[in-house]
């Protein structure tokens, strides 16, 4: 009698190839965090200053950690939203428009309903989340019902969103000066501003959705094999639409944090989020073809991108080479975290 139960593949030793690949993004992050202080160390060495490696590093300090945190939080929320979509094997490029609309509507409502969190204006926050969900829902409906690939549907929705934000503001900027709301940036607990904790809370929520709700697991099912999931009785269309809706909510959170960070809501609030967030997701090790990865990967990815951006300025890299260095490091990070054995081909 063969023992079928004993056929399960052994997981192997500590340093299997799979394991290295899985942890590659973290290794890259650690390497970067150790590398930038090294350049500082070298620079001071050349100048003949005393410098204990890491200890004297300006980059490797809690204060700078908080700065990277501030820079990273809005992008993190956006990237987390995009992660769900990418796990499904789709892509969402509508974030710039969604963020702008949410930011602008939030500011309008916030200012119109009292202008401080200590009044009914706090309702502007749930409003922004609802608006994000709505835009995501429309995006998902266009993608699923009109059978337009998500790349195109969301790209066009992005145009619509930016256009809508412009229409709403007529080009004006809205200042959100409420001290209570701005305490997101100005009040610090344990050296980190509140916005970092808010982002952390939403990250945990995202992790919870990813691993402890049926919806979250269904994203993986759709990404792992859409047709199989369909034939198992899963309502794939519904999962997709819910996924885009959920992504919209996280984009809205990103929008709120972006407004909290600079105190201004405008059509341009969403600018530059698209490529940064997708890059961060992929750098973190979530595969564009779906089914692999998750929100912790995205956290690592966002940190990698922001550490690079911060570190390049800190070590005084000339501005014109910064883009190139970023590009090179991104290629490196993704190349390292791709398991070549599991991929037949890449496009």
């Amino acid at each position, binding site marked *: 009698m063969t023992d079928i*139960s004993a056929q*399960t593949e052994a997981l192997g030793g500590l340093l299997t190839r799979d394991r290295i690949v899985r942890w590659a993004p973290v290794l890259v992050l650690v390497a970067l965090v150790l590398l930038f202080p090294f350049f500082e160390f070298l620079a001071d060495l050349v100048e003949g200053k005393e410098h204990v490696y890491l200890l004297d590093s300006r980059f490797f300090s809690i204060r700078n950690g908080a700065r990277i945190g501030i820079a990273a939080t809005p992008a993190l929320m956006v990237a987390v939203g995009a992660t769900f979509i990418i796990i499904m094997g789709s892509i969402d490029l509508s974030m710039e428009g969604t963020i702008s609309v949410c930011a602008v509507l939030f500011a309008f409502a916030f200012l119109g309903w009292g202008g401080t969190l200590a009044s009914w204006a706090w309702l502007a926050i749930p409003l922004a989340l609802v608006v994000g969900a709505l835009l995501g829902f429309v995006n998902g409906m266009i993608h699923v019902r009109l059978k337009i690939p998500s790349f195109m549907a969301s790209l066009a929705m992005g145009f619509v969103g930016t256009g809508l934000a412009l229409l709403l503001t007529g080009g004006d900027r809205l200042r959100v000066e409420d001290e209570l709301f701005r305490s997101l940036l100005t009040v610090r607990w344990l050296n980190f501003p509140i916005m970092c904790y808010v982002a952390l809370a939403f990250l945990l929520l995202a992790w919870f959705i990813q691993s402890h709700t*049926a919806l979250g*697991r269904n994203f993986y*099912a759709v990404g792992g*094999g859409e047709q199989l999931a369909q034939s198992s*009785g899963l*309502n794939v269309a519904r999962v997709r639409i819910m996924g885009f809706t959920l992504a919209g909510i996280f984009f809205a959170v990103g929008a709120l944090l972006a407004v909290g960070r600079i105190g201004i809501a405008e059509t341009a609030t969403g600018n530059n989020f698209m490529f940064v967030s997708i890059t961060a997701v992929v750098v973190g090790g979530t595969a564009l073809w779906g089914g692999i990865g998750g929100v912790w990967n995205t956290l690592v990815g966002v940190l990698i991108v922001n550490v690079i951006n911060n570190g390049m300025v800190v070590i005084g890299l000339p501005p014109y080479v910064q883009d190139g260095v970023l590009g090179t490091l991104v290629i490196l990070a993704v190349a390292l975290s791709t398991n070549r054995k599991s991929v037949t081909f890449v496009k």
Partner: protein
Amino acid sequence: MYALNKVDKHFPGVHALKAVDFQVGRGEIVGLVGENGAGKSTLMKIIYGAYQPDGGSITIDGTTMRFQNPRQAMNHGIGMVFQEQSLITNLTVMENIFLGYEQQFVKFGIVDWRAMAKAARHQLTKVKLDVDPAAVTSQLSFAQRQLVELAKVLTLEERIDGDLVILLDEPTSVLAKEEVELLFQLVRDLAKRASFIFVSHRIDEVLELSDRIYVMKDGAVVDVVTRDEADVDDIQHKMVGREIDKEYYREQKQAPYAADAPLIRFDNVSVDNRYRDISFDLHRGEVLCLVGTEGSGREAILRTIFGLETPTSGAVTIKGEQVTRFTAMAGVARGVGYVPRERKVEGIVNGMNVFENMTLSQLNKYSDLGVLRVGDEKEMAKDWVDRLAIKTPDIRKDCGGLSGGNQQKVVLAKWRSGGSDIILLDHPTRGLDIGAKEDVYEMVREMNDAGVGIVLVADTLEEAIGLSHTIIVIKDGEFQKRFDGTPGAKPSLYDLVHHMI
């Protein structure tokens, strides 16, 4: 209990099911056999709700049903055990088991993993499989996955109060002999609770397990026999509609090969985790068949010859030259042609027409400085369409729209027109109807006569025996035995199976 009454199904240009009557009684195990293309898969799809019939009705205990999708069918107790590919490999075992039905473990939006694991373990006990429900499916063996599939369908037991009908689609194709027996024992035990429809191309297995057997041919049920009165030859005869004999495999045309003209020599070749120390020779005019179970390393050997796998040790010599660069390009240049099993994915390019597919491996031959001579391409394609009697309205027809047999002919024409004299056939007759199969066998002999050496991984053991000059049995990547297949001295099925498992 469950019945299909005069069910009809049309597809553009095809009358797939012709007034099919089909009944399943409570606790009964019903076999369904038929050649590929006979309508089995269409019938199954109608049963589990993926297709809706154009005519006729489906009744359960006399009540007429209409299922819009698989989920509705499931809610009426009809479940389908797919072949092993239908588990989502990046999910855990328990997630796969309860995919689409997680709601029962959700409280306040939270999935209770512990409860799900417990429930999954319960399902797994039903199929006597002891794996961790939280294990990722990709770590499971094929046999394990097959049992998980069954466990998944058995969740209907708890979910549905009424009767269950469970379809088993070729459940044994990836199982070893003992695993098959285990599965059969399971099914017999479960028949107390559910009825089964067992679909397989292995008639002996169907006979062993089923109470009644439906035989299908050309979209119609041609016979229903009970186990007692069933006879293998008789069923085969009805399925095929004609005698299966030695002529079927063109044994009378099997000529001796040129033992002095080796094409390929494998000398203790190994590929890590695939196969070890394999040695053989292939000669002009020879059919060499690699026999073994799924995952025994047969395909990996084919892929090594073609250049898609690089050996970790040993020497591969093709036409007297030792191979150092293992790439598909180099393989093609050496005159190797590969007819892959996944015809629709690897064989033809869906979306390209007949002549484009035929010249795909030999674009250099049909171009000057990169510019194609489309006229020559078409001429060649027309020539081969005639020679192989490829049924296509036009050489501009999209290959994806051709029938399986004609697609296979296009793939063969691709290699033969390019002058390949080593042809690797991986399940060349899989999914072909009987006439198309015979065409393939005919072509094998023709190629032999033309001095082509063929390495075959056959669809069935009968096919392997019937076609081969030489049979090599492989088990778990290791050489077991070599059989001579000269007509009249061919090994028996039993000889092979004995060494396979």
